[in-house]
């Protein structure tokens, strides 16, 4: 709807906001907080006026988790100080808004890697905690919260020091709680040791979905990182054909034996300097990723992948964050934006997975990013997404007629199988199914209500899904703030030739 809604805000003020998918859009007052004091002050002010408030990081959640229409959005992406980094133990304490990108630039040359990274490194540590993000290593290492030792949380009831021992229910309500328990101000994270900044990667093709699942079940345990890319436009007996990539951090011994391939990792073997290779400078007026283009891309991607290749040396950025090479690639989806449908179903519910992949194929939903992986055991986060089983993530352009109904049908199947969809990616879940998908919702609500009985913390996601339950507080008719009457109505008459 708006071209600018997902760009970082340069300063305080009212503006349109959206997530990475560029829809839904809403308007809020953004307060840039550069440290905990500024964030706490914004919270105190909103509590006093009765405004709704939510924290925001780098806006990489796809939907409406980090925005609140008519309320206050505390943007902590400017609170980026690295407070303490212990090179011996790999324990790091940093402000909420430090990005994984910045952290890695410091830690990788010192021999430490983040224990969990999403498919983009442009997320804040607090955002990673609020969504309890997972990486390609969930089956081995669990999700982000497992590695968080403590954090400081500014709640409506005051600032708390939170760990798994102290205020443990607040800890687990915050991990995956989508920012609704409070503002995370800083946190302490255990990193994992690496000997080099290189990855050793095995790639193989799978002929169809069942082949892919079988290969994953058989040999995932041998790899720390594992993921499959699926061509969801392939039809007939090719439905679910895929490319599996699995890998490990390269040991220095492995890299020293790699000859020329190792040179780019420098004398210390831990050089790390990822760059953006390109950017999408503006939003084209139409979607460039047409069904034909996506089908052609998928075909080429599948064919380009080796049938089987073992022991390839890759960089961290190529293995973990290939999309970060193109800045603002989300603009390619055009003004209507896109969504990601990500669900998990328990092991044993493979039939549901087959059915949904089959339906994506028969409906020819044009997605060039469809990713399958296996999750290990769930952590105790009340609303944490990962649970033992299969997770599928599908990028889908918005604006396809019938999409709402199609995805509602998937929701039913996922819920019936005992699965759930990922709130950090959501912009459209059927609200009635929330409780089925997240059976511990009431427990989580109790913690939120205890910390914030007045319900200052709220987001568009919260309101859309009644996460914290509908609040019957009469809302005043929104009026444009005095002096800015022209701004919300976009283009003013003076700007067009009569």
């Amino acid at each position: 709807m708006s071209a600018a809604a997902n760009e970082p805000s340069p300063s305080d003020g009212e503006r349109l906001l959206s997530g990475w998918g560029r829809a839904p859009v809403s308007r809020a007052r953004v307060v840039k907080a550069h440290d905990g004091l500024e964030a706490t002050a914004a919270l105190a002010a909103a509590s006093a006026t009765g405004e709704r408030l939510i924290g925001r990081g780098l806006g990489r959640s796809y939907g409406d988790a980090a925005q609140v229409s008519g309320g206050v959005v505390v943007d902590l992406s400017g609170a980026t100080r690295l407070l303490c980094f212990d090179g011996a133990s790999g324990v790091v304490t940093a402000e909420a808004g430090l990005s994984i990108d910045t952290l890695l630039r410091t830690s990788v040359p010192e021999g430490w890697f983040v224990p969990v990274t999403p498919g983009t490194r442009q997320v804040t540590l607090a955002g990673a905690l609020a969504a309890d993000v997972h990486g390609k290593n969930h089956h081995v290492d669990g999700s982000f919260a497992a590695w968080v030792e403590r954090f400081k949380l500014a709640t409506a009831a005051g600032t708390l020091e939170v760990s798994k021992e102290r205020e443990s229910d607040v800890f687990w309500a915050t991990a995956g709680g989508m920012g609704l328990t409070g503002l995370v101000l800083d946190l302490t994270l255990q990193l994992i040791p690496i000997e080099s900044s290189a990855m050793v990667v095995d790639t193989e093709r799978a002929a169809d979905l069942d082949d892919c699942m079988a290969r994953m079940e058989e040999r995932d345990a041998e790899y720390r990182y594992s993921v499959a890319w699926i061509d969801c436009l392939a039809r007939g007996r090719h439905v679910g054909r895929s490319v599996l990539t699995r890998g490990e951090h390269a040991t220095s011994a492995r890299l020293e034996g790699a000859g020329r391939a190792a040179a780019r990792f420098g004398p210390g073997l831990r050089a790390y300097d990822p760059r953006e290779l390109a950017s999408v400078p503006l939003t084209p007026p139409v979607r460039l990723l047409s069904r034909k283009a996506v089908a052609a891309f998928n075909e080429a991607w599948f064919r380009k992948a080796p049938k089987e290749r073992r022991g390839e040396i890759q960089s961290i950025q190529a293995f973990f964050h290939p999309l970060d090479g193109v800045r603002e690639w989300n603009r390619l989806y055009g003004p209507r934006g896109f969504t990601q449908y990500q669900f998990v179903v328990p092991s044993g519910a493979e039939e549901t997975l087959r059915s949904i992949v089959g339906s994506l194929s028969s409906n020819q939903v044009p997605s060039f990013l469809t990713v399958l992986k296996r999750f290990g055991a769930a952590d105790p986060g009340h609303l944490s997404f990962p649970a033992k089983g299969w997770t599928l993530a599908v990028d889908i352009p918005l604006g396809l007629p019938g999409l709402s109904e199609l995805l509602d049908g998937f929701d039913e199947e996922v819920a019936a199988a005992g699965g759930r969809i990922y709130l950090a990616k959501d912009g459209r879940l059927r609200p009635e199914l929330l409780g089925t998908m997240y059976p511990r919702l009431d427990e989580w609500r109790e913690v939120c209500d205890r910390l914030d009985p007045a319900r200052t913390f709220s987001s568009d996601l919260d309101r859309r899904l009644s996460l914290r339950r509908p609040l019957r507080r009469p809302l005043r008719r929104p009026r444009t703030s005095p002096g800015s009457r022209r701004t919300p109505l976009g283009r003013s008459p003076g700007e067009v030739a009569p």
Partner: protein
Amino acid sequence: MIDATGMPQSGVLLGGTSEIGLAIIRRLATRRLGRVVLAGRDPAALEQRANELRSSGIDQVSTFVADVRDAGALDGLVSEAWARLDGVDLLLVATGDLGTAELSELSAGRVASIFEVNAGGPAAALLAFAEAMAAQGSGRLVVLSSVAGVRVRRANFVYGAAKAGLDAFAVGLSEALEGSGVGVTIVRPGYVRTRMTAGRSQAPFAVDPGDVANAVVRALETGEKIVWVPAILRLVFAGLRVLPRPVFRRLPG
């Protein structure tokens, strides 16, 4: 909240007894719509429609009495709707009155009244809701225009002229709202079988209220700004628009 696929959760139907309007509400209720205000001038008829919607499973339905010609009442509607619905995602403007095109029946007052119901009142409502929606940075305004305003005919020229005015107003408003998070959808149906057309001879390409509802849901999903129902009328009127007057005059229907 409007979700990523464009489906609203709360809405106001202005012309709360309109058959087309209610068909759209029912169709949207199968997706996300659960909180509705029916606004109109006849309290008993509104209440009856509200009961029907409630028994069809829509959570929260209430009524609001307002004549679309009364600017004060429209302003009251905006405040009331925001309070009752906890934010308004959708305004559906479905008021309309064919009036008359008989010169002997027309007077300055009668013309002004037809213009008020079909254009002036709806435009005022659109404006008031647009301002409040722009402040929340999201919202959808759906306007029932008509092909009658695309090429005005002798048989209903006062109505047609008013619809032409409303349609043009809505196009301009849509431009003015560009970049505000608020969108305008203009619906141009041909002949729809409702009480409004009952007793009139059926024109070619006639549709039912449900067809209009399907087209509107589709447009909310795709972001289409102008919706012809049925879609073929877009082509038909591309032709009719440029037809010489003596030929146009002789067309049936």
